[in-house]
């Protein structure tokens, strides 16, 4: 049984649906990457999973249950975590407080997890008392990811993690994502940096007009001339 | 705003709904008239007419412009004070005394202070910019204030101790009403310049503050408005009951006839204003206003002068409020600054507009009449309830309820709150909502 499975998901923000029957399956060992043109419904898919918009058709199965239209504070304890693209840190709170907020739903002692996050992002350990708003773009992205990891998710979803970052940070973020995945967290992310992201994707999904166009492993999709021509800029 | 479907039937059809509501309204008026008596009915109707005018003004500001004006009470006071100044009989004592000269000096001092501030703002021509300029301007304000106070304080004291107050010009009250509109427009201009850039909640708070300042000013300028000692009686544009009695009418008839004439005059003014506003709303100017209201940002990006248009709306609305306030003051024949309360004036007008239907002139007029009647009859109704309740508690040994009169009066406030809450829950767009025509 897959960690998470989307079957014919239809949904939108009210009005015409943006997703018109999306299918997807991810295992906990996978790094899933969603690519496609603007307006294809990539971010919308993530938001649909996380209960941030209305799903009007199809099912989203996580941990054996249909969680479509559940609220985030029910999903986080179940092991789902989400890093939005923008405004993804609490700017007035310190780095450490941001991480603490990620662990809000955990009833147990989360200091081990916090050590793990600091190990993964050493620069955050240095700046733990600084307000997150004072950090650079790349560092903020790390805080955002760290916050999402504090709830010890089985599936981590990221919306364009490399957006607006300098190339050095982009590589670092992707390397971290691979490392996190090796430590047992499933990854599902949306990316504009299609080629770079698909390079290490174990499952790639090309979406257009709210529907699947191509599915395969990342390297397969990169190698496919049709995909390359239409979606990856040749 | 949702568009009106042309095929809507029954309650949803705006025309039918409007007619039904006005018919119901008419019925209520008749019932109240029978219970309370003709003269009282006419009193209620006239004041409701004035409030309808004021509500139209708020509709222009809020319904058309999305401007959160909570300074309504202030404008009503300004209108009242203006008509006092213009229509109250001339106070010869004042004109014969040194008063005018002292006031003239105070006026000069005011102008001198103003010139000082304006000059200070030009100081960047001499190379003083930034923080230095701010300091200079602040000093100019301070100096101007001190100069003005040095002249006006003795002038005010003198006038108050000799003639009492400035008195009026003895002109026709209708001119006084128009003057009320004019002064309101001027004040609206200044208020608008300062505050219209603020976002809605801030604008609300800012306008409440301005209203309070206006009230404090008017209440304390005894030399101009007689302050808490009040001005009365104010003359009417139509014959007063006393004048009709002198001509031979019976007392009861005189009240009815006099009020009928005043009412007729007020209704005429209301109709004129209504027609003007309706025409403007339907035309291109109105469309542009609504475009701005519904989306500032895109309108601004299309080159429309958003703040300028908002200022226009603010001023036009205030003119109607000033006139309405003047009519009220003239009708009750008393101008009492302490009698103005935010609840009675500002909030009630807001309830009228929201319950009636913001953005729809018919709705707003209906709302005005409806709410005002509800406001007025809450008191006697509450009295009835309290008296019965009191008899009951007396019987079971708890004793009668004290101060029924003043408590029943407070019922009005409570009822107003309930009405607004229910309206927001069940009819947020109002009884007769705005009808958006597809262009």
């Amino acid at each position, binding site marked *: 049984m897959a960690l998470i499975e989307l079957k014919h998901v239809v949904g939108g923000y009210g009005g015409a649906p943006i997703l018109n029957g999306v299918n997807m399956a991810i295992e906990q060992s996978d790094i899933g990457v969603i690519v496609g043109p603007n307006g294809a419904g990539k971010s919308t898919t993530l938001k649909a999973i996380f209960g*941030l918009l209305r799903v009007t058709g199809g099912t989203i199965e996580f941990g054996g249950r249909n969680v479509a239209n559940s609220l985030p504070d029910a999903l986080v304890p179940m092991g789902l975590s989400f890093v939005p693209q923008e405004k993804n840190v609490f700017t007035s709170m310190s780095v450490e407080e941001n991480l603490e907020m990620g662990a809000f739903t955990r009833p147990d002692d989360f200091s081990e997890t916090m050590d793990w996050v600091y190990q993964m992002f050493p620069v955050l350990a240095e700046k733990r008392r600084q307000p997150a708003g004072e950090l650079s773009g790349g560092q903020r992205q790390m805080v955002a990811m760290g916050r999402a990891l504090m709830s010890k998710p089985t599936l981590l979803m990221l919306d364009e993690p490399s957006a607006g970052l300098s190339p050095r940070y982009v590589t670092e973020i992707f390397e971290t994502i691979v490392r996190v995945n090796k430590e047992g967290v499933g990854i599902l992310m949306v990316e504009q940096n299609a080629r770079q992201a698909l390079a290490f994707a174990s499952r790639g999904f090309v979406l257009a007009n709210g529907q699947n166009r191509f599915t395969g492993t990342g390297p397969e999709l990169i190698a496919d001339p049709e995909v390359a021509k239409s979606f990856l800029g040749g | 705003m949702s568009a009106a479907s042309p095929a809507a039937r029954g309650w949803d059809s705006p025309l039918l709904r409007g007619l039904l509501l006005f018919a119901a309204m008419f019925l209520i008026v008749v019932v109240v008239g029978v219970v309370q008596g003709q003269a009282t009915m006419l009193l209620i109707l006239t004041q409701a007419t004035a409030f309808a005018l004021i509500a139209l003004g708020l509709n222009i500001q809020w319904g058309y412009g999305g401007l959160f004006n909570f300074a309504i009470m202030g404008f009503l006071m300004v209108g009242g004070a203006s008509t006092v100044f213009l229509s109250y009989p001339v106070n010869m004592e004042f004109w014969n005394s040194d008063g005018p000269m002292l006031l003239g000096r105070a006026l000069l001092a005011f102008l001198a202070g103003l010139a000082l501030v304006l000059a200070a703002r030009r100081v960047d021509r001499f190379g003083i910019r930034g923080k230095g300029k701010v300091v200079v301007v602040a000093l100019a304000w301070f100096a101007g204030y001190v100069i003005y106070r040095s002249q006006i304080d003795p002038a005010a004291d003198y006038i108050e101790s000799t003639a009492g107050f400035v008195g009026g010009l003895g002109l026709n009250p209708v001119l006084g009403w128009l003057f009320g509109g004019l002064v309101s427009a001027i004040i609206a201009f200044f208020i608008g310049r300062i505050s219209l850039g603020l976002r809605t909640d801030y604008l609300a708070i800012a306008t409440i503050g301005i209203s309070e300042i206006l009230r404090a000013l008017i209440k304390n300028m005894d030399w101009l408005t007689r302050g808490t000692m009040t001005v009365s009686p104010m003359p009417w544009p139509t014959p007063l009951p006393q004048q009709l009695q002198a001509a031979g009418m019976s007392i009861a008839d005189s009240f009815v006839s006099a009020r009928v004439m005043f009412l007729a005059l007020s209704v005429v003014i209301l109709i004129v204003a209504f027609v003007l506003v309706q025409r403007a709303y339907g035309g291109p100017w109105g469309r542009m206003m609504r475009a701005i209201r519904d989306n500032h940002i895109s309108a601004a990006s299309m080159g429309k002068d958003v703040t300028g248009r908002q200022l226009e709306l603010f001023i036009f609305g205030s003119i109607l409020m000033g006139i309405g306030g003047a009519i009220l003051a003239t009708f009750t024949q008393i101008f009492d600054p302490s009698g103005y309360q935010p609840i009675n004036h500002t909030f009630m007008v807001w309830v009228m507009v929201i319950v009636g239907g913001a953005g729809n002139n018919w709705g707003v007029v209906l709302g005005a009449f409806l709410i005002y009647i509800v406001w007025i009859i809450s008191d006697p109704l509450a009295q009835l309830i309290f008296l019965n309740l009191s008899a009951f508690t007396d019987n079971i040994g708890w004793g009668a309820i004290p101060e029924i009169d003043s408590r029943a009066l407070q019922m009005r406030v409570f009822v107003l*709150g309930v009405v607004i809450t229910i309206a927001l829950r069940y009819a*947020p767009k109002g009884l007769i909502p705005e009808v958006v025509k597809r262009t």
Partner: protein
Amino acid sequence: MDELIFFINRVLISGTVLGSIYALGAIGITLIFGILRFAHFAHGDMMTMGAFVSFVLASALAAAGIVLPLPTGFVVLPVAMIITAILALGLDKGFYAPLRARGARPVTLLIASIGVTLMIQGLIRLIFGSGTRSIYVSAPKDIFRFDMSWIGGSRPINITEPQLIMFVVTALLVVALHLFLTRSRLGKAMRAMADNADLAQVSGINTALVVRVTWVIAGSLACVAGTMLALDVALMPDLAFNIVLPIFAAAIVGGLGHAYGAIVGGFLIAFAETLAVFNWTAVLRPLNNVLPEGMALPANLALVPTEYKLTVAFVILVITLLVRPTGIFKGAST
């Protein structure tokens, strides 16, 4: 020396009392704005409601014949706070939450809070009448006089017992709030939600719980502020209606959403008001000996006549909105 004592009595002490009241009220407003994103106009009436709850409890104690060394108004405060908090939750559940669920704009919520103001005002007047009363149901105020003759002053510094207790209570509450916001998980979640409500939800924070806690805090603090105001002045139905404006000004000046800003703003405005209506001549009297013949200080050199006291808060508000709309601590704005 006498002038300094006069200054301390009139400005320092009464300014601090007023500042405490403003601060406690402003904290509620700023928290509600930060978390629920609307201007809670009915806060003044929530303060009045709290004061009347205290009054009822104090009267009940007095009727039962219980006399205490402290003014009963303070003794009943914890219970009154709880009751007011429950009432605040009820207000939200009954009037604001349904509108929020329908996606109402902040403006609509403001109007709803006006409706609530009117209803509370009306109810209080209906039940208690519109007269003024004293909240001291038993003994009158104790006044502590500090003899200042040892520094050469001929008058004592006066602090009334209630005022002293007010300082202590305010300090305690502020410290408690600070600890709550910085040390507890729920407090931090509140700050998070005020910072970024969407992200707070995404992080799994129970936003409904945070909203409830906000009303509890706002309600209890409003109760304390209202009771203190009644103790300092007198108890009447429109008690706090008049200070809605200074309280909002305090919250805005401090930066909407920032509790500390509200405290600073409250004291700032209170002292500005007190200083503005203060008769400086009393303090500057020694200068009269220095000035040349013919020039004397006017009898009343107050910057602003007492009737215009309200305008001080308003002027500060306008200046803030024009110069630095986000306030001292950079809170929410447009």
